[in-house]
């Protein structure tokens, strides 16, 4: 079983598109489900922190994997 319920690949896209797509993907999830996001925009690290802070969703993790940024967000 994977540790997330849905995955979004926002590689190659600049802010705000990864955020907008994550917002849409989260809307399709139930509370407590987890979304995995992959992005390449270096600004996305700060952006997803700000996004979670403002929307109340929980940023479970934020890290780098093979030159890409990976975020796990749990829907509130």
């Amino acid at each position: 079983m994977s540790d997330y319920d849905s995955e979004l690949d926002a590689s190659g896209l600049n802010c705000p598109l990864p955020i907008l797509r994550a917002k849409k993907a989260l809307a399709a999830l139930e509370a407590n489900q987890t979304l995995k996001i992959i992005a390449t925009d270096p600004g996305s690290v700060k952006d997803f922190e700000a996004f979670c802070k403002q929307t109340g969703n929980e940023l479970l993790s934020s890290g780098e994997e093979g030159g890409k940024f990976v975020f796990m967000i749990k829907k509130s």
Partner: protein
Amino acid sequence: MSTRLPGPERRLLILKESQHLFAEKGFHGVSIDEIARAVNVSPAILYRHFDSKQALYDAVLAELSSQRESYVEAVINSGANFEEVLVSMTEVFIHSIDENPNLLRIEMQSLLNGNPATSEFFENRWKSFTDYINFSLNELLAYDIDDREIKILTASLMFQGMVREALLQKYLQPQDRLIDVSLNELSRELVTLFVRAVGIDRPRPAETV
């Protein structure tokens, strides 16, 4: 009068002063002596921080072309509507130029000089718009329209051109004919026209003749 500053602070001051001078007079219009005078140091001290005028200009370009705006708040607070999001993004972008018009001046210089920093300005500053427009139009435009791909590409170009021209008029023209137009009005009007032109605006009530 000589002011003693720690190295990193002096470096920042040199960058700040030279940014203004380069933005105003261009690379060839400014001498190392002039920059040194503006920072209140000798040219020798300036050369301790930057090997040449070119190295200093490149550092100024690198700093400006890597400046990114965050659109997180703009998109969180503006709902999911394409037009609303684009208005909020445009406001953020225009305000960044309003805070530092050197961003625009130096970008134009780098474009005219064929400097590689031009692509950094695009990657870090304009691509947010072209990505958003490309992606959204791919979702919003009917699949059976003619020349779909070229229409999406030209829409991105049109938007970039429109915003850039408005900014050039507002910030680089001595006789500013947009002086009475607020930044937010400007953003909204440009986006309204754009959305109409690409044909995805919401249906409007029939106008009375």
